[in-house]
């Protein structure tokens, strides 16, 4: 193979380098195992291999051509060495793992796909159902004013209705919102009917932490205001929701209730029969027709427009759906819990 380099000019030299590269690539593609790889190494990268030979002949190249040829040679060296290393590593691995017998029952090289928190997943399901019914999705602040959280929602300043929700106060006028209902007010202040939206978010209650209650939880609020919104439509919409969420054969009922910001007000129960336990009615959401005072507070004429609103707790819904009986586990974020969903 050794040719009479020094009589060749730069063109021939570059050509030779390119040829060597080509022939290396070709040989490389034929290498099948560690033995043939070693042959390749000796041929090209050995002390007396083709690449070394080319470097040796650099001394015969004229001074003005040297930088150019030198560079080309460097590239060749980097290219061959790195390709060689890469293949070597691969072959060694392959040999280790599957010398002659391919054991496909070995655990595959898994890639982990993470997951959303179970509360987010539950909310996603809820959002999907309501999106399908033409609802938008709005969010609002967690640190709220008394006005949005209570006053605008028709809670009189000194009324015992305020005791229904144990409140964390920041000042006497600011608080951690106790429900997502203030987002209703914010939305109605900004946009005129027709308005159809759900409003998910975090809410806070000053309740002792136990298996049944935590200092914060998540709610989804719903609101629909237009010229002909009725209680019958509220019922129809919520029934469609619970059937889709819990199953078409779910048993449900509506019973009268009280919320300052809706009238008539209702609560919806579903029949819950955990495995091996006696069935019972469980409250799943609160709802009602938007109270005319609330509409007046945001400048909507209650004679012309009517509306309905509803709100449900996501924790409760998720716990029911997945059979979780201690709310605290939702906020422990134990990996053994997170990876289950």
């Amino acid at each position, binding site marked *: 193979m050794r040719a009479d380099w020094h009589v060749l000019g730069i063109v021939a030299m570059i050509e030779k380098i390119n040829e060597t590269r080509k022939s290396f690539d070709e040989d490389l593609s034929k290498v099948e195992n560690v033995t043939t790889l070693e042959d390749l190494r000796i041929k090209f990268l050995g002390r007396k291999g083709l690449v070394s030979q080319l470097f040796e002949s650099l001394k015969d190249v004229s001074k003005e051509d040297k930088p150019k040829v030198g560079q080309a040679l460097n590239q060749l060296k980097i290219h061959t060495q790195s390709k060689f290393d890469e293949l070597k590593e691969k072959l060694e691995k392959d040999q280790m793992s599957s010398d002659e017998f391919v054991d496909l029952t070995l655990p595959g090289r898994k890639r982990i796909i993470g997951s959303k928190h179970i509360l987010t997943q539950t909310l996603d399901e809820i959002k999907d159902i309501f999106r399908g019914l033409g609802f938008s999705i709005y969010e609002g602040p967690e640190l709220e004013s008394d006005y949005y959280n209570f006053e605008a929602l028709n809670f009189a300043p000194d009324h015992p209705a305020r005791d229904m929700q144990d409140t964390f106060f*920041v000042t006497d006028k600011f608080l951690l919102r106790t429900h997502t209902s203030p987002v209703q007010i914010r939305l109605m202040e900004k946009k005129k009917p027709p308005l159809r939206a759900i409003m998910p978010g975090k809410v806070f209650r000053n309740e002792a932490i136990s298996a049944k209650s935590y200092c914060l939880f998540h709610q989804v609020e719903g609101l629909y205001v237009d010229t002909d919104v009725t209680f019958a439509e509220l019922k129809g919409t919520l029934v469609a929701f619970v059937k889709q969420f819990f199953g078409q054969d779910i048993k449900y009922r509506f019973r009268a209730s009280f919320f300052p910001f809706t009238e008539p007000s209702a609560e919806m129960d579903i029949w819950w029969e955990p495995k091996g336990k006696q069935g019972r009615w469980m409250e799943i959401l609160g709802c009602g027709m938007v109270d005319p005072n609330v509409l007046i507070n945001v400048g909507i004429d209650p004679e012309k427009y009517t509306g309905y609103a509803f709100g449900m707790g996501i924790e409760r819904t998720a716990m029911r759906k997945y059979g979780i009986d201690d709310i605290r586990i939702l906020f422990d974020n134990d990996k053994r819990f997170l990876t289950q969903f």
Partner: protein
Amino acid sequence: MKISINWLNDYVDLKNISVDEIVDKLTYAGLEVEEVDDQAKKFENIVIGYVKEVKKHPNADKLSLCKVNDGKDDFSVVCGAPNVSAGQKVAFAKVGAVIPNGGMKLEKAKIRGEVSFGMICSERELGLGDNHEGIRVLDPSLKEGLSFAEAMEMNDTVLEIAITPNRADALSHIGIARELSALFDLQLKYPDINLKESGKKSEELASVEIRNPNNCPRYVGKVVSNVGIKESPDWLKKRLKSVGLRPINNVVDVTNFVLHEVGQPLHAFDLDNLGGRKIIVRDAGKDTKFITLDSKERKLQSNDLMICDTNKPVAIAGVMGGENSEVTSSTKNLLIESAYFNSSSIRRTSKQLGILTDASYRFERGTDPEITKWAARRAAQLIQATAGGIIAKGEIDAYPKRINKKKASLRYSRVEKILGYKINNSTVKKILAKLGFEIKSVVKEGITVMLPSYRHDIEREIDLIEEVARIYGYNKIPEVGKITVTLEEKVDHSAFNDRIREFLNSLSFYEIITNSLLSEDIAKRFGNAINLLNPQSSEMSHLRTSLIPGLLTTISNNLKVNEKDLQLFELGKVFEKISDSNINDFKDFTESEQLLIALTGNRIKNEWFEIDSPFNVYDLTGFVESFLTKILPDISVNLKSVDESQSKFDNSFRLYCENQIIGLGGKLKNELCTLFDLDQDVYMVHVDLSVLKGISISKKIFNELLKFPKVYRDVAFVLDKNITSAQVMNTIKEACTNLLHNIKLFDIFQSESLGKDKKSLAFQLEFCNSSRTLTEEEVEKDFRNAIKSVEKIYNAQLRGS
């Protein structure tokens, strides 16, 4: 609130209605029955037994062998009581009964060789008292075989009803009876009051002066003299016990009875202890201290409403009476108070003092101003019946601020508009009438009604519509089967965050949700924290200023259960005060949305195909790059190392988009790891989502796929260790024409042979042109310029030359 069905029967006839029906109807109508306590149930299989004969047990001295008849059969029963004897009527618990006290289930048993079919019960075993000396011997006139519960009139069912705060009117047996009369179309009957009054008038024996008519619009007083304080009769004690009250004496018990009968709280004063025999209703005034019935000293605010005599306070109005005027065993003469107080005033006082009583609970919800006189008379009637005495003629009725009944109108069309369903006009009228709304006028379009004085929750048409709907039954209103979807713009505030979650999930991260409340120490470490006025505990006294503590707590908890390899993220709000002054406005604080991404432990652990590999800062920056290219497509984000002593991180960096900082990250400093008890490295980056959301992303446009070949050139430089790859790449970019399409760093090498503080960086340069094949020369020219620049600027050498 506890409601006894037997008691309800005094006002409405429920004999033919099952408890289940009552429970259902009340619950549907908004008076949710939470618990049903069927008292007869615990006496199941316990009957009146007749002891036919008693013999000594053949094998035991202290036991007897009895023959007990249950009205049909004779049973052989072993009994250990000394007082058992033939001819007695006893409580006979048959096989299958569960002993009320202790819950033991009776089975056929052999006792010292003799079979016993049941048990004769003691008072204690029946749960009726403490006596366990012997069996309870019953009235001999009781017929054997009768169920014990029925014979002893312990067949009551007590409902626990959750009354919503608007329904003050339902906080009594008559209130619930009124509701049932509407729900089942029954007649409601108030008890008759025929008083035997004699002697002086109440007004002559005592007087009332109201100095704050706003907070006390009406005060009725009635005098009963010469009473005998003693234990209440059984019927009264039974009524009170059925709703969970402890009987005290006949007078106090009567006042409690009337409260639970009609909802009007009463107070009985010992008239002889009232200075000047006068009641003055006034504000407490400055620095008032007062000892209440429970012997506790209370400090009052100057505007708390007090009931006083001519020289001292005698009760906190509507909340609790005082020790100095309570009814004692020696009390002879009574003044019965039946007042109507302003609900806000009572609520304020009750909250301020932290006292919640049956009385304050009702007053703060609003009682019936018109029932006051009736209630005083009813109490007088019952006091006379149980304590004797002389009822003075008439009542003192101080009513300085008359509360007039109001009217409201209802349009039938509006009922249909709200409900989406037509309820018969006659049904509407009937429901309202049954609930006590007096119909004033009827026109074609609707009706006008007088609002009963006990319904403070009803003022408007919508309130009447709710009454009609809930009594009619929500479940009878049909659900619509189709809805109209309006076509206004649809908005989704949550879409951006949802995309973030999905990208991070695909990069192996799990979402967590942590507590937004932190301790002061932790919260202040990360920002100007906002504190709660009424925290639950010092652990949760401040709003979080950062997502970091929640995440570190999560990691710490996971390490404890040996979960050491974690990739987690949280999306959430953090809160900070703008300055140290109080929060009076939304401008005084920030509520910003943050994303925190963290890794700790190993990327690869215990795998057969690869050696263990712990996460390092390059894993973090890699995830950040992958994530940002997805979330901010075609937008260049620069990562700059920063060296700040303030930083929470070693190897800390900032992410810049144009000149805005969008995030900070690095390896968590040791001091923070120690604080949270972490013994392994944690890498994290937090991103300000409000900034991220503000970056406008241009519309994605398709890039033509290349039709011409790419040309590659590899080059390796040896240069000083502290020169960054980004610097070199920038230099290369600047030196080349736009033929340079991409640069990739593919090798880093450090060794003694390169020289101390030197490293080698190897790059692959990718050249191309979208419209033609490149010539060797033009590529070579760019390539050479690039090398020259790097050599010159960084004093670099080509490696291998």
